C-alpha cells in the first residue's frame, strides 16, 4: 500500500524535541502537522531513561524520563496532532515550494508532501571505532545507551562485571543502574581531567556507590577472544601519551562506552544542509532554520543537550518559527551575520543571526573555569555580559540576547 499525505509541517522524530515542536507549531495556529518516528512508540531516548531528574526546570518536579515524555505526547493527542510510529523516513527531496518525504512502515509505503520540515532525529552514541578503542573485539562491548535499553526495556542484563569507558551522563547513570541490579562496576575511566557528565550524576551515581572514577586515564587494550575478559588502562602523561609503567589490568566481562553523542544528520546531509564541524548539527539562524529554507532543527539533532527541559523550549521555538515560514511571513532577503565562538568558547548555537531579532544563544566553554565572564560583543559594542562563579563543558549555558539593528561584521562570544 502506498499512502499519499499532504501536510504543512512534517516533524521527523517523536522524542521530546519532535513533540514539543509540534505543540509549538499548534500554539502558533498551525493545524496541519504530522510527526513520524521509527521507533514503536513516541518518546525517543527518554523511554529508556527510567531514572528521575527530568523536568526540574519546566515542571519544578523530578519526573522519570517516560513520565516527562508522556506529558507532551498526551498534549499532542489532546490537540489531535497525529504521530506515526514504527515509520522510517529514508528520503527527503526538495521541490520548488514543498518537500517530498518517503517513508516506510510495516506493510506500507508513504509519500508525504510538506511545506516545511522540522528535524528532530536526536543523536546516536559514539562507537568503539570513533574513539579508536584498541585491542580485540569480543562480545561484551556495548555503548551505555544500548545497555540501558536492553536493561530497562528488554529485561536483559549485558554482563556481571564491567568497566565504563568515558564519563558521559548515560555511563554514569548506567554505573548506578548496573550496581543496583547486582553487577559489579569496577571503574569509570575518563581521558579528560574533568568528568564528561553533570556534577549531580557524579555524586549520585558514582560517589554514593563507591565506584572509582579515574580521570586522565586512557585504554591500552581490550582483552578476550570470544567474550571480554579484561581491560588494561593507563594514566596519561602530561604530553597525553599513556604512562605504561603505571598501567593496570582490570578483570571484567563487559565494557560500556559513554564517550559522547553524535547528532544524527544523515537526512540533513542528503539535503546538502551545512553542518557545523564542532556541534556536528546543522548551522542554524536565530530562528533555528538550517541552510535549506523551510527546514528547521531542534533538540539533540541540532546540538547535544544535557537537560531535556531546554530541548523542549528550543523545540517549541522551532515549531513557532516553522509556522511563520509556512504562512509566508518570512523575508528571506534579511542579511545574515555570523556568531564567532571566541576565547574559551567551544561553540555557539545559532551560528548566524539577523539584525533586530531576539534569540537564545546556547554555548559551552572549552574547559572548567571559575569566575567566568561571558561577553557578547559586536565590533567594540558590548551586547550582553554574564558572570558565572563556576562553569564547565558539561553544562550548556544559555543567554538571551536582543540583536541590535546595525551590526558591523560578526558577533563575538568570549569568556575570561
Amino acid at each position: 500500500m502506498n499512502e499519499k499525505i499532504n501536510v504543512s509541517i512534517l516533524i521527523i522524530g517523536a522524542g521530546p524535541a519532535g513533540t514539543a515542536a509540534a505543540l509549538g507549531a499548534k500554539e502558533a495556529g498551525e493545524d496541519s502537522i504530522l510527526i513520524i518516528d521509527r521507533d514503536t512508540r513516541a518518546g525517543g531516548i527518554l523511554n529508556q531513561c527510567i531514572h528521575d531528574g527530568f523536568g526540574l526546570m519546566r515542571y519544578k518536579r523530578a519526573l522519570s524520563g517516560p513520565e516527562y515524555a508522556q506529558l507532551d505526547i498526551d498534549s499532542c493527542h489532546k490537540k489531535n496532532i497525529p504521530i506515526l510510529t514504527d515509520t522510517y523516513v529514508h528520503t527527503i527531496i526538495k521541490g520548488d515550494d514543498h518537500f517530498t518525504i518517503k517513508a516506510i512502515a510495516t506493510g506500507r509505503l508513504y509519500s508525504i508532501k510538506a511545506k516545511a520540515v522540522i528535524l528532530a532525529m536526536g543523536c546516536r552514541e559514539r562507537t568503539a571505532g570513533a574513539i579508536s578503542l584498541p585491542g580485540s573485539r569480543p562480545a561484551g562491548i556495548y555503548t551505555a545507551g544500548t545497555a540501558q535499553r536492553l536493561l530497562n526495556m528488554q529485561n536483559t542484563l549485558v554482563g556481571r562485571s564491567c568497566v565504563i569507558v568515558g564519563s558521559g551522563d548515560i555511563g554514569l547513570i548506567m554505573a548506578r543502574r548496573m550496581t543496583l541490579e547486582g553487577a559489579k562496576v569496577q571503574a569509570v575511566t575518563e581521558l579528560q581531567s574533568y568528568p564528561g557528565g553533570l556534577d549531580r550524576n557524579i555524586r549520585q551515581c558514582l560517589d554514593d556507590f563507591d565506584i572509582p572514577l579515574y580521570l586522565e586515564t586512557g585504554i591500552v587494550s581490550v582483552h578476550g577472544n570470544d567474550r571480554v575478559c579484561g581491560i588494561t588502562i593507563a594514566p596519561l602523561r602530561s604530553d597525553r601519551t599513556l604512562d605504561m609503567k603505571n598501567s593496570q589490568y582490570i578483570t571484567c566481562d563487559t565494557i560500556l562506552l559513554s564517550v559522547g553523542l553524535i547528532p544524527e544528520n544523515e537526512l540533513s546531509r542528503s539535503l546538502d544542509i551545512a553542518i557545523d564541524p564542532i556541534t556536528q548539527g546543522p548551522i542554524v539562524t536565530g530562528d533555528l532554520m538550517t541552510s535549506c529554507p523551510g527546514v528547521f532543527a531542534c533538540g539533540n539533532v541540532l546540538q547535544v543537550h544535557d537537560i531535556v527541559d531546554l530541548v523542549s523550549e528550543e523545540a517549541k521555538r522551532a515549531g513557532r518559527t516553522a509556522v511563520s515560514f509556512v504562512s509566508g511571513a518570512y523575508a528571506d532577503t534579511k542579511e545574515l551575520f555570523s556568531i564567532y565562538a571566541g576565547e574559551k568558547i567551544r561553540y555557539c548555537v545559532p551560528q548566524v543571526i539577523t539584525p533586530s531579532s531576539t534569540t537564545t544563544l546556547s554555548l559551552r566553554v572549552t574547559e572548567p573555569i571559575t569566575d567566568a565572564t561571558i561577553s557578547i560583543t559586536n565590533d567594540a559594542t558590548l551586547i550582553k555580559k554574564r558572570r558565572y562563579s563556576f562553569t564547565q563543558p558539561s553544562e550548556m549555558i544559555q543567554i538571551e540576547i536582543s540583536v541590535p539593528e546595525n551590526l558591523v561584521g560578526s558577533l563575538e562570544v568570549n569568556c575570561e
Partner: protein
Amino acid sequence: MEQYDVLIIGAGVIGTSIARELSAYDLKTAVIEKEADVCFGISSRNSGVVHSGIHYAPGSLRALHAVRGNELFEELCSQLTVPYERIGKLTVAFEESQFPTLEKLYTQGVENGVPDLQIIDAKRMQELQPGVGGARALYSPSTGIVGPYELTIALAEHAHAHGVDFIFTEEVVSIKNRSDLYEIQTKKGSQISAKIIIDAAGLYSDSIAHLAGIDSPRIYPCRGEYYVLDKRLEDELQLLIYPVPGNHSSGLGIHLTNTVEGNILIGPSNDYIENKEDLSTTVQILARLREEGHELLPSLTSSDFIRSFAGLRPKLTPPEVGGFGDFIIEDHDRFILLIGIESPGLTASPSIAISIREMIANHIPLALKKDWDPSLTREERFLELPEDRQEQLIAEDPDYGSVVCRCEGITKAEVLQAVDRIMGPVTYIGIKLRCRAMMGRCQGGFCAPRIAEILKTERDITIDEQFYKGIESPMFEGLLREESPHE
C-alpha cells in the same frame, strides 16, 4: 563414519571457491570448519581488492592465479549476485627516483599478461582523481573491488545448493592416511573419512599438514590493522591509489581503499606477531592510521572513524626476511596442501579452484552434473529497489516495511532472511555479514537490541542462546528477571 570423496578443511574464500567448483561434478564433497560460520578467518578481514597482477614475479603462482583470477571475477560475481566493481588503480611515484620502479612494475605486469596497463603523467592522474599527489603513475584499469564476505558466503551457499555438505564448529585434530582413505578426527570426537583432503585452513594450513605427517613450511602471522570510515566520504575516492612499494616492505603500504559498500578503509599496517588468534588493534598503529588518514583526506573528522579491525596474513617469509613468498599448492598423495595464500589470495581464489579441480581429476574421474546451474540470485536491498517493486514485496511480506538497522536501512524481512540463510549456529556476526545490519555508523547500537528481540519472538532463540561469534561468545548475561507468568 561419514565417507566423502573430497573433504575440504577450512571455509574461507579458498575452501568455498573449491567447494563451488567441485559442486558442478558428481562428487561427494564436504567442507569442515572449526568456527561457527564461513568466512570467520582471513577472508572477511582484508582490503577486498581484486588485484591486477603487476606486483608478482613472472612465472610465480601468485602471478598466474592473480591474472587468471582477475579475469574470472566479473562473470563469477554476476553469476552469484555479489557486489563487484572494476574501478582501476593508480600506483603512484612521487619523485623521479621512483620512476624506474614504475617501469619495472609495468614490464612485469605486461609479462604477467595484465591487460591495458599504462604509465600516465600528472595531468592524466588529475583527470582520474582530482587532487591526487604524485608525479607519475602506473594505471591498471583491471584492478577491482569486491565484497569479500559476500563472495565467500555466496560461494558456500551456491555449493550447498548443489549438494556440498558444510560441517561447522568442528576442529580437525587428527588425520590418518589409511592407504586409499584419509581418516579424520575432530576435537568433539566426530570421525569422517575422505579419499582426498584439501588443506585450505588459512593461517593453520601448516598445522593441518603436520597432522597428516607432511613436512610443510611454517606460517608466520603478520597483522594488518584497518580503520573503516563513514560512507559520507564515499565520493572522495574515484579509484584505488597506492604509493609505489618500497624495497623490503612486506605489505603494500598504508593507503586508502574504496569498498563496494562505500566505506573507505585506511590501512593495512604490517606487523609480525606471535599469536594466530590475536586480532587486536593497537594504540600505536591506530594513531598512525589516523594521522595518515587526515593527511590523505583533509575533510576527515573524528566521528568518521566507525570501526577498526585487524586481519592476519599467513606469511611464509619469517620476520627477518620480510617481503613475500609464493603460494604453495602441492598434491602429496591425495592430500592437497595450500599454504601461504596471502594477498592476492582473494583475487586468486577462482583460479586456484580450477587448478585444484584439475589435481583431483588425476585421482578421481570427474563427470559434470547435468543440472548444475552457475547462478545464485538474490533480491537487492529493499530500500534500493524501485518503488513499484517495494510495493509488491511489502504486500507479500509486511515485515519489509519495518526498518531494523537504521544506518544501513535494513528491514526486518531482510534480517530474518539472513538468519534463515545461516547454515551453522546463528550468530550476530553471521547476521551482520549476510545483511549488513549492525555494520553501519552506529555499529549496532540501535539495532542489536532489536535483533535480540526479533530472534526471541520470531525464531525462539532465547536471550541465553544468543551468541556473538560462536557458542563461547554469549551476547548477554541473561534475563534480568524470570519472564514466566506462572511463578
